[in-house]
């Protein structure tokens, strides 16, 4: 006789189904993507000019402005634009962008003392920032290596290697040539070919308290690789459950409907991560230290009693997990969403589903080539959109993208040779901080004040200006302007950064306008001639500053400060 399911069982089944619904939706979306095409843009939408488009592509991909030669080439022949995009995609600056993009996803740059392996022998003299940055750059460097070498993006969870510099190699005991810089290496144990899933840093960053059994790690991986965030589930926490009693919790996550919906999927995923040390790294006493402990792999059997599993399947070990994630349609879709969101500065929820589905389809068929995906994004209408004359449509058009603090740093360095940095003996928790890049640092620098993230308290960048980001931009511009004026005053013409049309002491109006035309091209990506009306405001700024001080170098410093912190410089 067939037993009737109890109400409790039915509720439990419903909760489980709710947890699995995301998988089904992703599969359906993937299937739909084969036949659906994004609708054409509205007729009220206008697009960037080819040179504006080139400038946006250059900034989004590299964080630096296109050269004048590139601008002129595209102005003369817009069909040249894709060729320059291809060039940008092979540049070292794009590798940095790939790391920045994935840091916004994985949140791996928190300057938090107890998340940073301590300065103990033989790294006892290493400054805080150097240790912190190296350790957390390791998984980001691996991703960038995969992308830059045109390897399938799935390798971020299946690669059998990682990257290390001397610090990472020393800390984790990885083979290394002892040369400067980053190089490919391998984990010396049997953690498996699992890309960033094998990265010790990932698990130092995401720890669960002992009785939470790697759930924070599981959610971080699900959130960042599948775009499935268990913590956003629309559930009510059942306070009848004594959350301080591990036995009660263990029962509830299996049998309590309000818990089981998520935990049926999350806990088996979490069980893969028991081999990674769960304690605080501040207790490390010397290097190398091995935070991967294979003997702990079966701890699930004495804790959650959930064997490792992936949404109903049971792949073996981290390598099996990596393959399962790579084969999950949510992984491809999530990667597309991350790239598209970063490059268009639109929230994931605001990205057109049909466009994402189309990108996903092509991404998969291109063997997960991330550079081809990025190329398609930056050449798309969604990327090159400028404005919409329809008021409702104008609300949805992101026609101005704001420079992130790290992009501002690269842009200023490329234009002026100036890097806002310091080597300091200031301390954090008794540990010398060392090198600070002011636009990529939160403890002494201005990354968050400039609109960036700190990977801890602030996890979403700001795409608009406020008083502090305005101060940051102008201070950076002022310092860069002063630096480049001094530099170019002393440099031979061929070695000058910006003053190629006139020396910094020039006051002759025609020479000034020739130089301003050059600066408009370099800084704003505007191709204008010396007699163009577009120079009027910049010329007035120079003339006003010169009239005030009588000092042409000071006048140029003021003019450059204005230009480098202008709307046209800070947005693209």
């Amino acid at each position, binding site marked *: 006789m067939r037993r009737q399911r109890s109400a409790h069982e039915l509720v439990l089944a419903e909760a489980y189904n709710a947890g699995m619904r995301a998988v089904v939706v992703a599969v359906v979306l993937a299937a739909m993507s084969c036949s659906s095409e994004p609708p054409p843009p509205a007729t009220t939408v206008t697009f960037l000019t080819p040179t504006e488009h080139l400038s946006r592509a250059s900034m989004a991909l590299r964080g630096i402005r296109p050269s004048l030669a590139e601008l002129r080439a595209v102005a003369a022949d817009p069909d040249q634009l894709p060729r320059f995009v291809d060039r940008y995609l092979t540049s070292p600056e794009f590798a940095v962008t790939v790391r920045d993009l994935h840091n916004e996803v994985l949140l791996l740059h928190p300057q938090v003392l107890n998340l940073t392996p301590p300065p103990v022998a033989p790294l006892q003299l290493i400054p805080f920032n150097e240790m912190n940055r190296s350790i957390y750059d390791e998984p980001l460097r691996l991703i960038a290596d995969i992308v830059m070498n045109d390897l399938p993006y799935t390798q971020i969870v299946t690669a059998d290697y990682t990257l290390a510099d001397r610090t990472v190699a020393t800390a984790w005991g990885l083979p290394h040539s002892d040369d400067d810089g980053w190089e490919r290496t391998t984990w010396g144990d049997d953690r498996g070919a699992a890309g960033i899933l094998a990265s010790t840093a990932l698990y130092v960053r995401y720890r669960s308290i002992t009785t939470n059994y790697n759930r924070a790690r599981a959610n971080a991986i699900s959130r960042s690789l599948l775009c499935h965030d268990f913590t956003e589930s629309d559930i009510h926490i059942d306070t*009848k459950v004594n*959350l*301080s009693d591990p036995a009660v919790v263990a029962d509830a996550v299996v049998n309590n409907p309000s818990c089981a919906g998520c935990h049926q999927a999350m806990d088996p995923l979490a069980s893969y991560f028991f081999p990674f040390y769960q304690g605080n790294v501040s207790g490390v006493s010397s290097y190398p230290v091995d935070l991967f402990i294979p003997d702990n792999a079966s701890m699930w059997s004495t804790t959650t009693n959930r064997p490792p599993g992936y949404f109903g399947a049971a792949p073996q070990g981290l390598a099996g997990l990596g393959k399962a994630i790579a084969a999950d349609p949510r992984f491809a879709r999530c990667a597309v969403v991350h790239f598209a969101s970063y490059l268009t500065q639109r929230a994931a929820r605001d990205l057109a589903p049909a466009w994402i589905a189309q990108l996903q389809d092509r991404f998969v068929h291109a063997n997960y080539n991330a550079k081809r995906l990025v190329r398609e994004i930056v050449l798309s209408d969604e990327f090159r959109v400028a*404005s919409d004359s329809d008021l409702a449509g104008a609300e*949805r058009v992101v026609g101005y993208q704001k420079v992130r603090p790290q992009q501002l740093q690269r842009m200023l360095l490329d234009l002026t040779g100036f890097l806002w940095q310091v080597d300091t003996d200031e301390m954090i928790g008794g540990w010398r901080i060392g090198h600070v890049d002011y636009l990529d640092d939160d403890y002494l620098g*201005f990354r968050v004040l400039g609109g960036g993230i700190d990977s801890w308290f602030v996890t979403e960048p700001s795409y608009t200006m406020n*008083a502090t980001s305005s101060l940051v931009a102008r201070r950076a511009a002022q310092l860069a302007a002063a630096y480049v004026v001094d530099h170019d005053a002393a440099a031979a013409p061929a070695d000058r950064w910006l003053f190629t049309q006139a020396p910094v002491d020039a006051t002759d109006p025609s020479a000034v306008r020739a130089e301003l035309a050059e600066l408009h091209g370099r800084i704003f990506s505007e191709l204008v001639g010396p007699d163009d009306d577009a120079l009027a405001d910049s010329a007035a700024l120079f003339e006003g500053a010169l009239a*005030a001080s009588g000092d042409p170098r000071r006048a140029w410093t003021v003019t450059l400060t204005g230009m480098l912190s202008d709307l046209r410089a800070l947005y693209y």
Partner: protein
Amino acid sequence: MNRRNFLIGTGAAGLAAVSLRGGRNAFAIDPPKQPPRRLLLVFALGGWDTTYALDPKEPPFASVPAGAIQRFGNLDIFTDASRPNVTQYFERHADHTALLRGIATDGIFHNECMRRIATGKRDENQPDIGAMVAHDLGNALPIPYLVLGDVAFTGPYTVSAARVGSTNQIVELLGTPDADPLAATEDALLRRYADASADRARATRGAAGYNRRRVDDFAGAFARSERLRQLRDRFGARGEIQSLASQIPLALDALQQDLSHAVMMTTRLGWDTHGDNFLQADCHETTFGQLTPLIDELIRRPGRAAGSKMIDDTVVVVFSELSRTPMLAGDPPHEGKGHWPITAALVIGAGVKGGQVFGATTPDSGGIPIDLSTGVPSPTGIQPMYSHFIAGLLALCGADPSAHLATTPVFDAFIA
């Protein structure tokens, strides 16, 4: 009656008339609009253990520290001689203080709950209560929303907010008073240049919608930053905002001198006591040890209206995104408590029904439905949620809850 239905801890709210209404919403008849009030937020990040003071419990339903319930008017607070700052605070300021119990965050993850308890919403990119109040009521000030602490959610009101940084880095950006006689002239030139650029953008790509807001924010941010530089002396020195004690004077000055309308502070204490839960005592002591002089100062400093004090036009909210499990877990002597989704909050100052408790929890710290307009447990009421809490704070500060939270019922029992 099982123990979950046995309601305790309702305090003075039980004296109020019981209403069957679940709370007001935008379609209900609105109560009289409150006057605009300034807002000081004190965020105890990490999750406080409410059994240490704000929501007394007893064994065997909870593991509690040494102490006993002490009444301060109608507030029942858990105190002990070992935690004198807690006692002193309520001795001095209970009459200004409303205690809200049983607020559900509907989650047990820090980041999610921080967002919910601060914004009243689950979604990303929503403004928190400070950002909303500052935008609605103080947007003409130089820095409507000043963020001294670590966490704030500014959402669409980012342009109205300013962070000082974890080591008060803003001081470096503001520079030193400029003796250079040319500086003012050059600043004016730069301002004119930026404004011209914004005007050009408004005439073209930045004419409407999202683009227009970015252009307006660019120009507005420039103007606000200039006003900020005029106030550089008020921001102290580098590194001075590490503790709540050093944030408070900055916050008070910012409000009193009309630099800001709302300020977010964080206690920067280790509330997240998964181990060594006894450290909650130190956290409470340090925090209440600073809250007392904070309220003292609000009572002492002049308010906006002639003859008034800041306490007459300023609201202080002390809150935490989580509380802690009723029972200890782990090995002695390092037992800790996990995350718990029912928390409490203090609402202090202007317009507050002080000396009363609103809302309640079960003996084992579960939630209880209440009438949101009275704070009294009611079988026909609803569980007070983070959204109701934020709606109530908006109303208290004189903002329109429905403008931000649509039809969310307003937990306004604590408004005088």
